Structure formats: C-alpha cells, structure tokens
C-alpha cells in the first residue's frame, strides 16, 4: 500500500510540473492563453507566427532550462546531503560554485575565446573552473574521503576561489553589471543549444545516480556498518561525488549560481513523501526542483515587468518561508541526527 502511495506522489509531481510549465509558457510580456500554448506546441490549427516565435524561440527553451537546472540542483543536493551526512549540505558546498564563478568571471572580463566559442564561452570557462575546484577538493581529501576532511577541503577551496573572485571583481570595472547578473543566476537569452547540453547530462546523470540509491540508503547506517554490509563505501562515495559535482557544474555553467534549490528541495520532498528511500527521493527531488525553478523563473519575469529580477532572489524569498512553515509543522527527523 505504501508503495502505491509513493508512486502516486510521482504522478502528482509530474502533473504539477506539466501545469507549472504550461502556466510559465503562457505568462510574460505578451499573454498567451494556455490553450494557444498547447496548440502551438503540438502544431494544431493555425497559430499566428508571432506567438509561435515567442513560444518556440524564447519561452519554451527557457522553461526547459529552468526545469533541468532546478532538477539537477535538487538531485545534487540530495546526494551531497546523504554522502556528507549533513543536512546543511548543498550542491555548492564543495566549492563547485566558486570555481565556476571564477571561470565565468575570467571569461567575461578577459573575453578569451569569445570569438571561437560564441555563446558557449562562459559555460565552457565556468565548467572548467568547477572541475578545477572539485579536483582540488578531491586531491586535498584523497586519502580516505572522510566526511570531515571533504567538508573542510570544501571550505578551504571555497575560500580560496572566493578570494580570486573578489580580486577579479575589484580589477574589472567595465563588466561589473554583467558579472553581477551572472553570479545571481539567470535564464535570460538561453536557447535550445543550452537545453541540448543540459538534457543528456541531467537524464543520464539522474539515472546513474538512481542506480546508486541502494548504496545511498545504506549510507544512512554509517560508514562502518555500510562496509560490514558489503558496500564498497569509498569507491561508491567517489563515483557519486564526481557525478553530483559534474551535474552541478553543468547546471551552474548554464545558468549561473542559483541558490536555495539544492538545499531545501531535498528536505521538502523528504517531509512531503515521508521517506528517505533514495529510490523515490532522487527522482522526486528532481521533479520538485524542476517545478520550483520553473515557477520561480516565471515569477521573476513577470513580477516587476518589464524589469526582470534575478531568479535567485525569488527562490530564496519563496523558498525560505515555505520551508519554515513546513519545518514547523513536522516533527519528523530529517535523517540527519546521526
């Protein structure tokens, strides 16, 4: 019975995602009815070319990116929280974010490779930065991948890259606004190319991580117990850490740093579906993360129209009170008091 209920939640989340995406497609500077949105998407009947252009060229890719980034960040959040056995862990805790920020800022200020890579310049640079930060963390805590040493290495690497970032910001005056907007995270001017980059990473990544959900469940018992049960803890931890960090770095390189999604969505889903079984937790966090970011992005577009506010502001303003209410209402353990 419990199983049916848990699968039912999946249906609920899918439906909600579908609705949220439809609404997000219909609202904006030009209002389009939801019926027209679907007519355009499915190619039924005559739709006016302006509407088609808005939907296909501007809104749909943007909504897709928001969904994929939101899902990826939430998924990575689940993995980090479970592996580091820390409820405060989020996808940025191991310095992936500051690494990619440094990469992006170098790309923006120097302009290197702008001609060759075109729109890909910032994503490529920030991805390299993220990988660099991750390598530093893994190198620093290479011996046994203990939780403590990972967290400490993350703090060290984060601090180091933050210092470089501050330095770069202080020497570049001309591009400050652009950098600022990137740092706050945004989905403006994202097109199908970005979707095509995110799509395989998100889906393959999610699937691979999901295959590790049994191990993630057993990790809740603690490292020693997991070893005695037969899990190759260090190898599994390394693989999952690298996967989560790759997913995060791709997401960040496409959208900039969007906070809060990776931190609260996993907790939100745990409380909602009342389980910490990662077979459900992983895909459902992906779906809810997608819903949350698509909704937040839609709000960020229309709230102060025609001005767009950074989506990170919306995720925090929306997420913090929502989460606070949920936390108040539940006495259930988050699986972290170990």
């Amino acid at each position, binding site marked *: 019975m*419990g199983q049916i209920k848990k699968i039912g939640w999946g249906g609920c989340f899918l439906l909600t995602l579908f609705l949220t995406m439809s609404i997000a497609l219909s609202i904006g500077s030009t209002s389009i009815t939801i019926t027209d949105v679907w007519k355009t998407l499915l190619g039924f009947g005559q739709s006016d070319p302006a509407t088609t252009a808005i939907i296909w060229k501007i809104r749909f890719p943007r909504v897709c990116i928001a969904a994929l980034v939101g899902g990826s960040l939430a998924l990575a959040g689940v993995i980090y929280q479970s592996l580091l056995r820390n409820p405060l862990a989020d996808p940025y805790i191991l310095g992936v974010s500051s690494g990619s920020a440094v990469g992006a800022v170098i790309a923006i200020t120097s302009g290197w490779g702008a001609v060759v890579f075109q729109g890909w310049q910032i994503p490529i640079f920030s991805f390299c930065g993220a990988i660099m930060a991750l390598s530093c963390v893994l190198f620093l805590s290479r011996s046994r991948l203990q939780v403590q040493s990972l967290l400490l290495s993350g703090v060290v690497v984060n601090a180091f890259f933050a210092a470089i970032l501050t330095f770069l910001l202080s020497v570049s005056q001309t591009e400050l606004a652009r950098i600022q907007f990137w740092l706050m995270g945004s989905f403006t001017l994202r097109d199908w190319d970005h979707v095509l980059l995110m799509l395989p990473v998100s889906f393959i990544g999610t699937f691979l991580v999901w*295959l590790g959900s*049994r191990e993630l*469940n*057993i990790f*809740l*018992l*603690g490292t*020693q117990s997991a*070893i*005695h*049960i*037969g*899990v*190759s*803890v260090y190898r599994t931890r390394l693989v999952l850490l690298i996967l989560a960090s790759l997913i995060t770095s791709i997401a960040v390189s496409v959208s900039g740093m969007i906070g809060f999604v990776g931190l609260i969505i996993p907790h939100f889903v*745990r409380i909602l579906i*009342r*389980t*910490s*079984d990662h077979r459900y937790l992983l895909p459902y966090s992906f779906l809810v993360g997608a819903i949350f970011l698509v909704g937040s992005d839609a709000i960020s577009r229309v709230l102060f129209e025609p001005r767009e506010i950074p989506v990170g502001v919306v995720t925090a303003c929306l997420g913090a009170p929502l989460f606070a209410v949920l936390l108040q209402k539940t006495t*259930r*353990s*988050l*699986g972290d*008091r*170990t």
Partner: protein
Amino acid sequence: MIIRGEGITKSYGARKILDSIDFYVKDNEWISILGPNGSGKSTLLSCLIGSSKVDYGTIQVFGKDISRYTVKDKAKVIAFLTQESLPDMPNTVEEIIQMGRYAYQQSYMPWYSKKDQEIVEEVMVFTNTIGLRNSQIGLLSGGERQRVSIALALAQEPQILLLDEPTTYLDVYYQLAFFDLLKEWQNKNNTTIISVLHDLNLASLYSDRCFLLHKGKVLDEGKVSDILTTENINKTYQIDPLLIQHPIQKVPQILLKGDFPSTTHR
C-alpha cells in the same frame, strides 16, 4: 578450521597493540575474547574482519587470506554486531533489515529477489521484530533496536558472527534475551560466533572456548573453566576475585569480594 591467524602483530605508532598472536576458530564454536581495556580485544576483532591491516602475520578465513576478500564477499561470510545501536533514521524496521541482503543482490533491477524477502521474513520472525516491521527505527527502545541490529546481521546469512561488546547498553533482561537468541541461531544454523565481552560471567555461561589477552599477547587460551582462574584474573584485570562454580551449569562465575576500604574507624 574457520579462521586461522598466525603471528598477528599490529602497532599504532610506537605502541604495540597486538604482539604475535596466534588465533584459531573451529566450526560452530562460540569464542570469547577476554581481557581488560586496552589489551587489544577490539583491535584483534577489526584485524579479523580486515578493517585494520596487520603489520605482521597472516589471517585466513576459510583458507583464504582476509585481505583477498572483496568487501561484498566478506559481507556474505562475516557479519559484525557492535555496541553502537542503529542511528536515528527515518526508515522502517523492514527497510533496514532488507539492507542486510545487499551483498547478495545483483547490481541491476530488480534488486530485491523473492529469496531475499523470504530470508528477511525469517529473521524478522526469529528476532521477533515482525510486529515492528513498519515502525520507524527512531521510535524504538534500546532493546528493540538491538533486536533490529541482530536481524540486520542475520539477514546477511553469515557463517561467522563477530560481536563487539554488543550488550553494553542493555539491561540484564535484554542481555540474556540477546545471548539466548544468538545461541539458538547458532544451534540452528551452525554459525561460528566470536565475541568480545566485558562480562566474564556471561562469557563463561555462553562460550565454548576463550582467549585471554594481556598487553597484546594471548595469556591463556582454552576452555572457559580452565582459563577463568584466580591467578589469571588477578594478573589481567588486577582485581582479587572470588571464584565459585555455577551450581547448575558447572562453569566458573566471578564474585566481587566487596571488602571496601574501611572508613568508619578512621
């Protein structure tokens, strides 16, 4: 021979914890490793399971060196029960016991086979946790949690069960229940049990043979009635015990003399 260890030596820095220990375990035995704190009991246990590598010497389990077992293969042979109870986690009892089947599961879907479920049901019935199967582990009492720990270990279908002071936090009722349960399981499944115990009386009642460790060496080894002597206990634990024979089981039991340093005449 299930386990044969020869010349096991292990140092942490300059301190020698284990000093050329010879250790062997036969089929279906209940072995107790005894000795005061710091005599190397727990280190010996973690060497036996391969968590710590020995500096010198060899440890063979079923004729194969322990370092050559994969983590998974080891889990099919050896289960480990410690004094630490299961952490507070949101999982149900059944979900946790199912984790004990990990080593037997294939890495593709469906992970969980019918046989796995049969064994989980069996150990839940055996450990009397079947009524708790849908309860959250965080809401159970210490004794109930320990029963779940046993079930988790038994679900591994181990041929060897290692116990590291598993009853430290339990009251006397649960201590007895715990040992009775394991004894019953041993008789039923021919499991070999190796336990590290503080309670000499329990060790004397339940184990067939024991090793008495003193400063990293085996001071004495053999049947419990031969090992638990006033002289041995005096030397290792540095107390002056009163040894009596258990009136029914005919094994040695230890009484404390209770001659407190007198303060009334001072």
